């Protein structure tokens, strides 16, 4: 394995696969915080050059976190199809990038090689791709999933209705949900982040959302994004949950900080299949985001792009209905400004799709980050072009409970009209029946939440 190269007259000798992968990243404050980023632009290019010539076998044979030491590594390793891996093991990372971008490489070809790729190989490829590369390659991949309805089809842009309320007030949650529905938003999920992480609270929100779904025959699915243990307790007490939710990290220790491990996820997986109200087969909702492992001091000196890819490797085991990176939520210490958030959003979406994940993105920022709503407009358009399965709908993009800004009900409606995208087919038929949409465009009735009172 050659870890030496010369850039503009200067010779660089890197020490390990871990170092090559970290230094090959585009600039991120999180890698700098971890003390693993490239010193300057030249060293970054040296790392990219070295990486481009490494083979997929080099990556697999030099594990960053050995399977014996980490269960996320084991999940990823166990999922590899050895025959397909055998076909591509001698490809360099440069060749992987070029294969993905070839005109005769389409959805089926990517789906096939994805069975032979580890998360680390996908991350490596990402580091050699430009933003437009990431858009074009991801747009080739179609990942369709089904909970109560199907989403993810080519030409479909779904939205999560996120009607959060600062005190979990049921009337307030419903009010915001009605607004979402009146803009045609909610086909990905009606998903609420609760303030109070208790089984009773989760149950009452699930009951309330289910009641609205049944009253208006809305073809979608509900979910309350409490800790998995709380949701399990609520489900065992009879709460109607179509899906279960959990945040994931890319290392076993990172997941421990979230209070989860693979055994617990397996248990929840069994429970939602047996006692959930969703049709399936896809009954999970996961969220991820670059930086969460470092935040939990569970990163092992591995860069945040690679760790993020590993989250998707873990998610894949559970055949999720939806997964989204909460790209700008974790803070400026990981993604400092809009340039870094936009890059990370495109990376995460691509890395998820490359691992056959039904990838959405919470296009978002916090108020202590150097970014604003215009940057979110930009990223949302890029992701719509990249074929993102869904984005988040919060009232006027302002989440009054989580205290951050995402994308709005208006934004999703606008992206659909501008980019010629549609809601999920079953949901669109429902919107047509309700008189809210006609030929893929909102009608004059749209925007009136009292339609659902």
């Amino acid at each position: 394995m050659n870890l030496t190269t010369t850039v503009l007259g200067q010779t660089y000798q890197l020490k390990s696969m871990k170092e090559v992968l970290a230094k090959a990243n585009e600039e991120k404050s999180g890698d700098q915080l971890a003390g693993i980023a490239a010193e300057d632009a030249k060293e970054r290019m040296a790392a990219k050059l070295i990486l481009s010539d490494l083979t997929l076998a080099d990556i697999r044979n030099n594990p960053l976190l050995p399977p014996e030491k980490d269960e996320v590594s084991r999940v990823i390793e166990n999922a590899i199809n050895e025959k397909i891996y055998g076909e591509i093991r001698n490809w360099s990372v440069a060749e992987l990038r070029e294969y993905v971008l070839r005109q005769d490489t389409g959805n089926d070809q990517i789906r096939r090689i994805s069975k032979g790729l580890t998360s680390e190989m996908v991350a490596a490829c990402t580091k050699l791709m430009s933003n437009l590369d990431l858009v074009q390659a991801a747009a080739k991949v179609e990942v369709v999933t089904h909970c109560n309805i199907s989403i993810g089809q080519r030409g479909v842009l779904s939205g999560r209705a996120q009607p959060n309320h600062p005190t979990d007030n049921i009337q307030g949650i419903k009010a915001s949900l009605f607004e979402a529905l009146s803009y045609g938003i909610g086909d990905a999920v009606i998903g609420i982040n609760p303030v109070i992480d208790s089984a009773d609270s989760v149950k009452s929100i699930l009951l309330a959302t289910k009641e609205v779904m049944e009253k208006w025959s809305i073809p979608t699915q509900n979910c309350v994004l409490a800790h998995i243990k709380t949701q399990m307790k609520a489900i065992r007490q009879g709460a109607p949950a179509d899906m279960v939710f959990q945040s994931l990290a890319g290392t076993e220790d990172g997941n421990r900080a979230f209070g989860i491990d693979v055994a617990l996820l397996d248990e929840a997986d069994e429970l939602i299949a047996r006692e959930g109200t969703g049709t399936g087969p896809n009954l999970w909702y996961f969220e991820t985001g670059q930086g969460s492992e470092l935040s939990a001091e569970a990163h092992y000196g591995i860069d945040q792009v690679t760790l993020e890819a590993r989250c998707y490797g873990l998610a894949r085991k559970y055949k999720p209905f939806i997964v989204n990176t909460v790209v700008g939520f974790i803070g400026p210490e990981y993604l400092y400004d809009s340039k870094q958030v936009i890059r990370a959003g495109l990376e995460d979406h691509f890395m998820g799709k490359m691992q056959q994940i039904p990838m959405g993105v919470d296009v978002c920022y916090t108020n202590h980050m150097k970014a604003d709503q215009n940057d979110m407009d930009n990223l949302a358009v890029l992701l719509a072009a990249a074929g993102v399965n869904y984005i988040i709908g919060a009232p006027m993009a302002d989440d009054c409970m989580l205290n951050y800004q995402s994308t709005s009900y208006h934004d999703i409606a606008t992206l659909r009209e501008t980019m010629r995208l549609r809601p999920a087919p079953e949901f669109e038929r429902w919107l047509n029946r309700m008189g809210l949409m006609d030929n893929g465009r909102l009608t004059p009735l749209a925007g009136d939440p009292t339609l659902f009172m």
Partner: protein
Amino acid sequence: MNPSLELEQFVDRVMVELERKFGSDTLTDDPKSESVSMEVKGAVSANASTLTTIKVPKPKWQEGLAELIESTPARIGVWRTGTRPLTKEMLKFRCDHAAAIDSIYGEVNEQILSRFDLFTVETRYGNTENYLKRPDMGRIVTAAGEELIRVKCRSHPQVQVVVSDGLSANAIDANLPDVYPSLLDSLEAYGLRAGTPFFVRGGRVAVMDHIGELLEPDVLVLLIGERPGLVSSRSMSAYLCYRPRKGTVESDRTVISNIHPGGTPPVEAGAYIGTLVHKMLEQKTSGIHLDL
């Protein structure tokens, strides 16, 4: 607070008042109606704060719309032009973003700290810019601070209360005067004894672990300013942990977030924190292991 923003909210309220009086069908963004509303400035009652502006032109249910809008601080019933927000609504959002950014760079009022006898220590944060980029430095109290804590604080307290500005100094100014006394009352009602409280400038949540090492409390309560949002740039969180030490993980902490007048009311929050502390001492655990 931005004076022009207050003015705009005031104008919105007046317009609703007018609408109720004259029963106009919809409100417009017509500048003329603003000038009309300014003339009746003195006529609006002080409790007009619950009034809301109706922007949806022909709602299916007019009264219902006001009910929906009043049930949440979320920006709903905002209407649209095409698929985009109306101009004033969009500008209001931008004003609120400007206010949130300002609150990150504020300082906690010294008078409030002295009123509750809180002495001050600092973390290694240095300055705001560095604080944002280096959360690790906000988790460690400076050597001088360590010394001060050792000298001034009772060690091994049953309950240690710590206050920190975190990402919003305004949150402490706005909520501590209500939360802190009700927390002390609640602890007293449960017969619990609190140690010597203090203030940490430039703190992150995990500074609890360092303080836990220094003082070894049974339960540590950290009242800290949250990352400011648009609706509330003054929201505070309470983080509680049973025997916090180096290496404590996030899921071992219990959090009550959204403490502000529009969220979890500060006085209630104080009382609830006391109840949680009591449960933690009973069950000898916290976070996801705590049975509520």
